């Protein structure tokens, strides 16, 4: 049994499991699933300044910080007890493309050749980690939600603005991955 769990989980197991988070949170306490809101709660609790956007009762949303603490814990459990002994399989076309940028270590979930303390000192690393992170935080709040809030919770509740947001997420992602990222990785 444990051997099966240690294998990478197929989409038809993980997808419904992720989807069930929506009713689980609703039934446990009328909580609406979404993760990027936590970034705002961190701002509201730690450095609200005089910004009206951060003046609200963040204590009412502490449940969500418990939820993300659970995600960190779940990540740790998976990494320490359920680790897959085999190397991660990646598409040969992607492997070939990445090799042209000198990326040939596919062992981790996060590519160590791109995401490391050392690469923070390079322009490439700075753009990817600091620039990418900034876009994720700024963009998700500007859009009013991220992949979880819009693409899963919003679409589950059949909210059409969430469908618009999801289409824009995908458009931005396609542009970055196919046209901008190759330029960044070449440097």
């Amino acid at each position: 049994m444990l051997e099966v769990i240690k294998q990478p989980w197929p989409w038809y197991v993980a997808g419904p499991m992720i989807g069930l988070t929506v009713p689980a949170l609703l039934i446990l306490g009328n909580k609406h699933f979404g993760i990027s809101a936590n970034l705002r709660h961190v701002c509201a609790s730690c450095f609200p300044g005089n910004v009206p956007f951060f003046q609200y009762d963040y204590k009412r949303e502490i449940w969500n910080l418990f939820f993300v603490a659970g995600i960190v814990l779940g990540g740790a459990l998976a990494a320490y007890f359920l680790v897959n002994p085999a190397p991660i399989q990646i598409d040969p076309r992607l492997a070939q493309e990445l090799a042209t940028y000198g990326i040939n270590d596919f062992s981790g979930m996060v590519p160590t050749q791109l995401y490391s303390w050392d690469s923070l000192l390079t322009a490439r690393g700075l753009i990817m980690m600091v620039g990418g992170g900034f876009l994720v935080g700024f963009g998700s709040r500007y859009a009013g939600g991220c992949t979880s809030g819009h693409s899963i919770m919003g679409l589950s509740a059949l909210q059409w603005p969430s469908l618009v947001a999801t289409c824009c997420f995908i458009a931005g992602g396609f542009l970055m991955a196919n046209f901008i990222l190759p330029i960044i990785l070449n440097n």
Partner: protein
Amino acid sequence: MQPSLIDNTAGLEARSQDTICINESHLQHKWYHNFKYLIVGVLFGLAFVKAEVISWFRIQEMFRLQSFHMYGIIGSAVVTGIISVWLIRRFRIKTIYGEPITFTPKKFNKGQVYGGFLFGLGWALTGACPGPLFAQIGTGAAVVTVVLASAVAGTWVYGRFRDLLPH
């Protein structure tokens, strides 16, 4: 101990600005009641790591149309969510505290287009949306705390200059 009912209509409005994911409950509980959400988070985090949703490579494959995996995950998650929400509405299912489950419709604004596009750029660049960032840190990728800190900074800058942006 019985949870107390509080009036938070004005508070709900402030909290729900630019967000879909909020606490719509009017009940207030002791802090340790939140541990049930932590348990849901653990299961969610396990699925994220074991299905390799948090892998930078899987996200690159998705945006290059080289793999069905991520589309299968997001698609089946959405279908599961749609059916669940439909059942909750159809049978007026209540929370475990007997409170009705409510849905507040979101209004369209231009932020969903501009912000969504910017978010998409960041998603493909970091290979992670906010959920996977937390799971990656959990797996021991300590450097991802830099990405997360930058995402918090991005959120703060949005909040600071919100009034100047088209909505």
